[in-house]
């Protein structure tokens, strides 16, 4: 079945540590790929997106993500996290060539720092 999977419901690291949030997709064609973040009591904000070209895309606030066709993945990374990065992160896809604008989301990964 076509799906977007974020295998980690929660991720916790220490301040200054690196972060990787995983996202895998299952579609016959390569979708357009997105990462969104939701800070407490705010709407979703787009961090970055991948349509084509360089598989490593840079986003806001030091985030980057790498597309891997062989692994059907689009993992999000940050070299050094800060308290302000605590949020829920959503991976999402859109299928090109379908005439549809809908986004399909993963369940989200809640990221927090070890106090």
């Amino acid at each position, binding site marked *: 079945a076509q799906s977007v999977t974020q295998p980690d419901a929660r991720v916790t690291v220490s301040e200054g540590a690196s972060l990787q949030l995983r996202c895998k997709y299952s579609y016959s064609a390569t979708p357009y790929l997105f990462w969104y973040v939701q800070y407490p*009591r705010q*709407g*979703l904000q787009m961090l970055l997106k991948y349509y084509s070209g360089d598989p490593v895309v840079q986003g806001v606030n030091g985030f980057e993500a790498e597309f891997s066709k062989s692994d059907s993945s689009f993992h999000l990374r940050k070299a050094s996290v800060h308290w302000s990065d605590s949020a829920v992160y959503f991976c999402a896809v859109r299928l090109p060539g379908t005439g549809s604008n809908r*986004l399909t*989301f993963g*369940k989200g990964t809640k990221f927090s720092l070890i106090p």
Partner: protein
Amino acid sequence: GPKVLQIPSHQIIDMGQMVTLNCDPVSNHLYFYWYKQILGQQMEFLVNFYNGKVMEKSKLFKDQFSVERPDGSYFTLKIQPTALEDSAVYFCASSLEDWGSSAETLYFGSGTRLTVL
């Protein structure tokens, strides 16, 4: 940056009653969307709306659901009558252009939690 506003953040309603969820999109945007997220599950597309018409809807957009944007003001989602399974967080989104453009960005509100008793 541009903001999509959804007020109130929480609505509680008795099953069978009507509810209208309000969304104040970014002022010059033309495309509008609703997504639904049941607790513990992923956010799912409901509908998108442009130029006074529903452009696309999912199987979750039941006959009891309707959307409109009267007089270019709030973009609303109406559920009549409500059912227990309608309890969820409903997110509104808007974009200036057809969001299929690679340059376009979709802006989301912070959601309205609907509780149907």
